[in-house]
């Protein structure tokens, strides 16, 4: 599964994307974030404050309780600041 990080999260993780085999016991995106946090100190910092993180599943905004199964890509990023 393709995992994407943008903006400050990308900077904390150290790169913008990684392709991972996600264990089958990871059900929700909240589970996925907790699992990703264990990968490095950067991941842990980037994903610590879930209240300040937004998520997209296959490029559509979703909540942390959305399912992971069947997704091609899941992206984590701060609240958007375009416009």
């Amino acid at each position, binding site marked *: 599964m393709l995992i994407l990080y943008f903006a400050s999260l990308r900077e904390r993780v150290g790169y913008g994307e990684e392709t991972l085999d996600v264990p089958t016991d990871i059900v929700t995106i909240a589970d996925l974030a907790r699992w990703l946090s264990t990968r490095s100190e950067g991941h842990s910092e980037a994903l610590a404050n879930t209240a300040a993180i937004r998520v997209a599943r296959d490029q559509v905004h979703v909540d942390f309780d959305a399912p992971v199964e069947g997704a091609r890509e899941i992206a984590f990023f701060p609240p958007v600041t375009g*416009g």
Partner: protein
Amino acid sequence: MAATPSVSVQAEAFDTGAEVAALAAGRTDIGAVVSFTGLVRDLTGDLEAMTLEHYPGMTERELTAIAEDACKRWPLDGVRVIHRHGRLTPGDPIVLVVTASAHRRAAFEAADFLMDYLKTRAPFWKKESHRNTAGGWVEAKAEDDTDAARWEKGKKVQK
């Protein structure tokens, strides 16, 4: 005939006048064209540049979804959205929204709505670099969420 929105995400500048003209060109049923142009603002005089990161693919998809939503809510004859990414400097245009309709209220409200939704839903992130102080990522504003919430179904809006 419902409008088919046209959406671009690009590094290049855009021409507001040309886009306004294009939306009404060759038509005689459009009474109102509203444009919103967003510019890089430097209130302190210390801003060197603003760099916009985005999520290629999702950005286009999200802008199109927002524009299609506007076409469902208002009787629009045209919608054009352009959002730039990359490095911009103070005074540079960042974003353009143009709406065309037979009716003035529809054109105004749809442009207002598009900007509010774009601000809270389109995956762009601004990073500032300053001349004399530390730069960094721009924080999202709670005010933008409040603005966007004005358009939620069933909510009455007060100015």
